[in-house]
C-alpha cells in the first residue's frame, strides 16, 4: 500500500475508534478538571498522544479504557504543571459549573453542582461507574486502588450527594 493510502487508512481507523467516545472524553476531562478550557486542552493533547500511539493498541476492544486512561494521565500532567499557580478554586468552580447548567431542570442543575463540589477522589469513580459504565474491578485498575477503596469512595460520594439533595429527593 503506498504511503499516502496507508496514512489515510490509519487516519480513518483512528477516527473510527475515537468518534464514539469524543463527547464522553470531554465530559470526563471536565468532571476531572472542573475547568472547561483545561478540559478542551486535555482532550486535544490526549487525542494527539492517542494518535501517536494508536499502532500500539493491539486489542480494539480495549479502546475505551485506553482512551480514558490517556485523558486521565494528560489531566494529571496538566495538574502538575498548574499546581504552583494560585487560584480561587471554589470561585472558579462555581462559575464554570454554571456553564453546564441546563437552566430548565433545577433538580439536575442542583445535582450537577453538588457533584461539581465533590472531592476528586469521590467524583472520579462516580463518573466512571455511572457515566462510563465501568465495573468496580475496572475502576480499581483504572485508578490504581483496590476494589474495596472504590466501593468506599462510591458509597461516600453518593451519601454526600443524597445529604445535600435531601429536600429535592423527598419532594420529588
Amino acid at each position, binding site marked *: 500500500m503506498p504511503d499516502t493510502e496507508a496514512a489515510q487508512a490509519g487516519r480513518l481507523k483512528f477516527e473510527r475508534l475515537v*468518534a464514539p467516545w469524543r463527547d464522553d472524553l*470531554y465530559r470526563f476531562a471536565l468532571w476531572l478538571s472542573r475547568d472547561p478550557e483545561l478540559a478542551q486542552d486535555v482532550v486535544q493533547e490526549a487525542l494527539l498522544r492517542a494518535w501517536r500511539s494508536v499502532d500500539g493498541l493491539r486489542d480494539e476492544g480495549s479502546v475505551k479504557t485506553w482512551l480514558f486512561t490517556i485523558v486521565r494521565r494528560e489531566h494529571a500532567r496538566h495538574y502538575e504543571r498548574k499546581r504552583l499557580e494560585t487560584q480561587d478554586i471554589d470561585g472558579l468552580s462555581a462559575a464554570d459549573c454554571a456553564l*453546564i447548567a441546563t437552566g430548565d431542570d433545577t433538580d*439536575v442543575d442542583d445535582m450537577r453542582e453538588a457533584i461539581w463540589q465533590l472531592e476528586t477522589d469521590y467524583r472520579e469513580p462516580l463518573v466512571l461507574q455511572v457515566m462510563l459504565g465501568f465495573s468496580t474491578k475496572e475502576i480499581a485498575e483504572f485508578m490504581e486502588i483496590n476494589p474495596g477503596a472504590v466501593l468506599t469512595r462510591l*458509597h461516600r460520594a453518593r451519601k454526600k450527594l443524597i445529604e445535600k439533595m435531601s429536600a429535592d429527593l423527598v419532594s420529588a
Partner: protein
Amino acid sequence: MDCERFRAELLSDPADDNPALQAHEAACGGCAAYAQRARRAEALIARALRFDVTADKAAQPAPVRKRWPRLVPVGMAAAIVAAVILGVGQGLLRPTDTMEGDVLEHWQHEPYSWVVTDQPVDSPKLRKAIAGKVVLDESQLPTITYAHSCFFRGKWVPHLVVQGKQGPVMVMLLPSEEIGKPMTVEFVEENLEGIVMPHGQGSIAIVGVEGESLQSLQQSLSRAVEWSI
C-alpha cells in the same frame, strides 16, 4: 444483613441485584424508603453527569451572539447541535475521503465557533492557536473572533473564524496539506460555500455563507499568512 450494611452496599452500587439486598429492602420499611431516595438520586446523577457537550463548548469562546448570519436559516443552530450530538453515533461526523469533505466535517464539529460578533479573540488564544506553524499579519484580515488549534487529518492546525460581510467565515490554515490547484467546497443544505486554495507548501481552507466575498478574503489571507514550519 443489617440496615447499615444494606445502605452501604446500596450506595456503592445501586445497580447491584444481590438477592440479599432485595430481601432486606422487602423486609425493612425504613431501608425501602431510603432505597427509593437513593434511586431518585441515581437518576439525577446520571442525567447531571451527561451534560450537553455542545452547549458547554458553546460557552467557551464567550463571544457576543448578536444574530445568526444572513442566508442561514434560523433553525440552523439547532440543526448543527443535533448533527453533532447524533452524528457521532450515526456516522455524520465520520471522516470523509476528500479534503473538501474533511473541511466541512470539521465545520460541523465546532458549531460554537460559528457566531456573528464584533468581539475579537483574545490575543493569547490566537497566539497559542498559531504557535509554531504560522506567522500571521492580523492587520490584513477582518476581525478574528475565534482561534483554536484543532486536530485535522492527523495534524494540529490553526482553525480561525473571521467576520466577513455576510457573517462568520471559517479559515483553516493547513501548512502541511499541499494541493496542486484550488478546490471548491459546497454544502448546499447549509448555504455554505468555500475554497481550499494552495498556499506555498500548504493550503488554506475558507468556508463562508453563500454570497460571502471569498475572493477578497483569499487575497487578504495570501498576504497575511506565512508558514513557519
